[in-house]
């Protein structure tokens, strides 16, 4: 015997069962920005390496980057670099200096700092 009615599953993210919190968001952003940087680094190095064949080669390469898509990607990478750094400093503070934090506040400040650097980059490059 069984009371109650069969119902459908409530909506729940496939990615994780527990609801996301600020600390999870911080780790996810840290991780994704890190992957983006790791993928970008070899290309960055190869681009600078063209200077071995003379300043002209580097200049003509830089010429390729004067379009909207590359500009957007550059902005994303500068933001990712800043974000990865501040989120990393947060982890070091938690691990080594046992900083008791208000996670949501600290993570918000970290994200804001990353975006602020991205904004400065946009303002400067404009």
């Amino acid at each position, binding site marked *: 015997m069984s009371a109650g009615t069969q*119902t459908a599953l409530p909506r729940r993210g496939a990615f994780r069962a527990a609801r996301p919190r600020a*600390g999870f968001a911080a*780790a996810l952003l840290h991780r994704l920005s890190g992957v983006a940087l790791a993928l970008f680094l070899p290309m960055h190095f190869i681009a600078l390496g063209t200077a071995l064949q003379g300043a002209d080669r580097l200049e003509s390469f830089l010429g390729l980057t004067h379009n909207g898509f590359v500009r957007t990607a550059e902005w994303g990478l500068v933001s990712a670099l800043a974000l990865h750094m501040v989120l990393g400093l947060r982890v070091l503070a938690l691990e080594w200096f046992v900083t008791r934090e208000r996670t949501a506040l600290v993570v918000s400040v970290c994200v804001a700092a990353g975006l602020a650097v991205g904004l400065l980059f946009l303002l400067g490059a404009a």
Partner: protein
Amino acid sequence: MNAPIPAAALTDPTVEPAPDAMLTVRIRRGDGFQAFTVARRSAQTILDVVTEIQREQDPTLAYRFACRVGMCGSCAMMVNGRPRWTCRTRVAAVAEEDGLTLEPLRNLPVVKDLAVDMEPFFEKWTAAHGAFEPGDAPPEDFAVVAPDSPERRAVDAGIECINCGVCYAACDVVAWNPDYLGPAALNRAWTLVNDVRDQGQAARLKAVSGDAGCQSCHTHMSCTEHCPKALAPTFAIAGLKRATARSALKRFGSRHFRRSA
């Protein structure tokens, strides 16, 4: 300690519900969910709700509890997607507009309905050397441990764990890496690392290191935010990271930079 108070807990649980208020409770049973309706009562806990359903509506519903007062650590389950001890969680504090969704604890095999198999949880407790190691020749006399010594304080900070498994269910690293020892076992190991009488420290530090160990913690803070006893396993694990790093550096140094070790 520092576990933040969830905003929902701020709603006064002593407020009397309306006389005919009802609550919709969706309970995961196997692959599907089953919905029940129970009356709202004053000071009602999640465990009260589950017990009422099992006694009045469906005696086949399986769940686990023992003490009902937050000591035994057997009644934890997922409540609206978050792991909680159900005996001390009031319905008024966590019910959402459409009621309650109850599921078995995450990251553990389900036995039936809301009851999970805690075996892997306790196996990891053992794997992390979670038992006191007196050594081959324990001292005859009592050890003197000053209550305000840093070591004793570090033990105090983590010793109240009741093994409820809430942190283990909250941990994303356990979900991604099933070998990971998890917050509870590592927290226990940290209390023993700080036990000055313990003689098994080298083996313990080795046991809590590696891809299944403390270094895999990414400081998501989920364990610390969800611990019903307001412990902070994140910081216990950070302590293990520092202790294992120090001991590894020492070993590395004596192996490579000293002629006689």
